[in-house]
């Protein structure tokens, strides 16, 4: 299985680079004045959040194309992307409170961004549960596609709510219309981290996709001829 092996190597590379991100973040990037060392988690937290959300959008996109083309590869990709998205959402949900404790003084806060990541996580959970509850492979693909598209369409509403809510969450400081208000070295570290997380997303999806192929068995590929 070439894909599986390639996925593994890419994962190893990604994890190595992630270690690199942290060396750079801890040793070569200035400490943020008000938040102190706790701010360092931001380099892990925000890229994971971006990909937790991005994975859902890709699930939706793949699902929409699946309904038109009925190509099982698209469905396999959607499933893989959903599982990887779940992991990234879980990273956000664990790193958020770790950052929140020293800054907000509480582990969990019903801050909008964190809350909606929780919803994203639950959305993924529902998607994976639905897949598990349908026995027939054709029906499972169709149902999963319908839910995937709906999930992706819910994401913009989640985003809107973030901006309309009064929130404890630090407002986005990179992806905002005006110029980024972040010191150059922090931005560089953060961009580096975003690239590493992108790499990890791709690597994880490749492995998960290969596993799905293996699980379907040799007949799996031609089943939906």
């Amino acid at each position, binding site marked *: 299985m070439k894909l599986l092996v390639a996925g593994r190597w890419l994962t190893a590379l990604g994890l190595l680079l992630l270690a690199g991100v942290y060396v750079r973040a801890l040793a070569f990037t200035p400490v943020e004045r008000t938040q102190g060392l706790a701010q360092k988690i931001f380099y892990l937290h925000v890229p994971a959040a971006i990909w937790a959300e991005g994975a859902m959008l890709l699930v939706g996109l793949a699902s929409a194309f699946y309904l038109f083309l009925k190509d099982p590869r698209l469905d396999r990709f959607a499933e893989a992307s959903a599982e990887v998205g779940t992991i990234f959402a879980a990273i956000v949900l664990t790193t958020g409170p770790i950052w929140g404790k020293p800054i907000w003084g509480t582990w969990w806060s019903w801050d909008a961004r964190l809350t909606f990541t929780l919803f994203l996580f639950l959305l993924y959970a529902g998607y994976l549960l639905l897949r598990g509850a349908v026995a027939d*492979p054709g029906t499972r693909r169709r149902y999963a596609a319908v839910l995937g598209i709906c999930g992706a369409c819910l994401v913009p509403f989640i985003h809107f709510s973030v901006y309309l809510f009064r929130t404890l969450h630090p407002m986005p400081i990179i992806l905002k219309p005006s110029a980024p208000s972040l010191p150059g070295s922090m931005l560089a570290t953060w961009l580096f981290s975003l690239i590493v997380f992108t790499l990890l997303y791709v690597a994880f999806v490749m492995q998960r996709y290969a596993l799905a192929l293996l699980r379907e068995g040799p007949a799996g590929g031609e089943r939906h001829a």
Partner: protein
Amino acid sequence: MLRAEGLRHAFGPVRALDDVSFTLQDGQTLAVFGPNGAGKTTLLKVVAGLIRPQGGRARVDGGRRAVGWIGHQPQLYAQLTVWENLRFWASLYDVAPSDAILARLGLDVHRDRLVRALSRGLVQRVAIARALVHDPRVLLLDEPFTGLDRMAAEEFRKLLAEQAASGRVTVLVTHNVEEGTELATDVAFMRGGRFVYLAPRAGRGAGEIGDAYRRAVAGG
């Protein structure tokens, strides 16, 4: 007219239909015999348009509107009366149900009873009335004699013969050779998703067809 060309369909690794082709002209009745799991119900569902086949195509003159279907389940609402059911199903075809069909099936006295209060045989008769409510040109019948007593089955056979005489196309699927032979102009045996036999009945009775069936399904 009804035409099926090279129908193929599989559920996962199970081949339900494997290159099934046949053509029926108006007035023809095809009886399809086969053991459980031979693909008979899948065949009807594909012809009816409930399942899109993975290969081949099925064509019915007049499309969905022209199809009358009796399935394993009666497709009736238990909480509605016989008449309410018929009126609802007819309304989906933009027609009104007729009292004549009720009388013909001996249902006129049960017209205003709830379907859930009816016996199994009566429910099956309502299901038959439901399938005929829009005067379909093609009848697809999946084990339609289930639950009918001898008298009702005989009456239903007569009804089907009349339908055929007026030019209806009928596909009748059953595992019981005794039930279907008399009505058929053509006979097919099905096993493992394939037609292992397809020929005009040519006046043969249930006994002869039964012998042929046992040879084809046990041997071939």
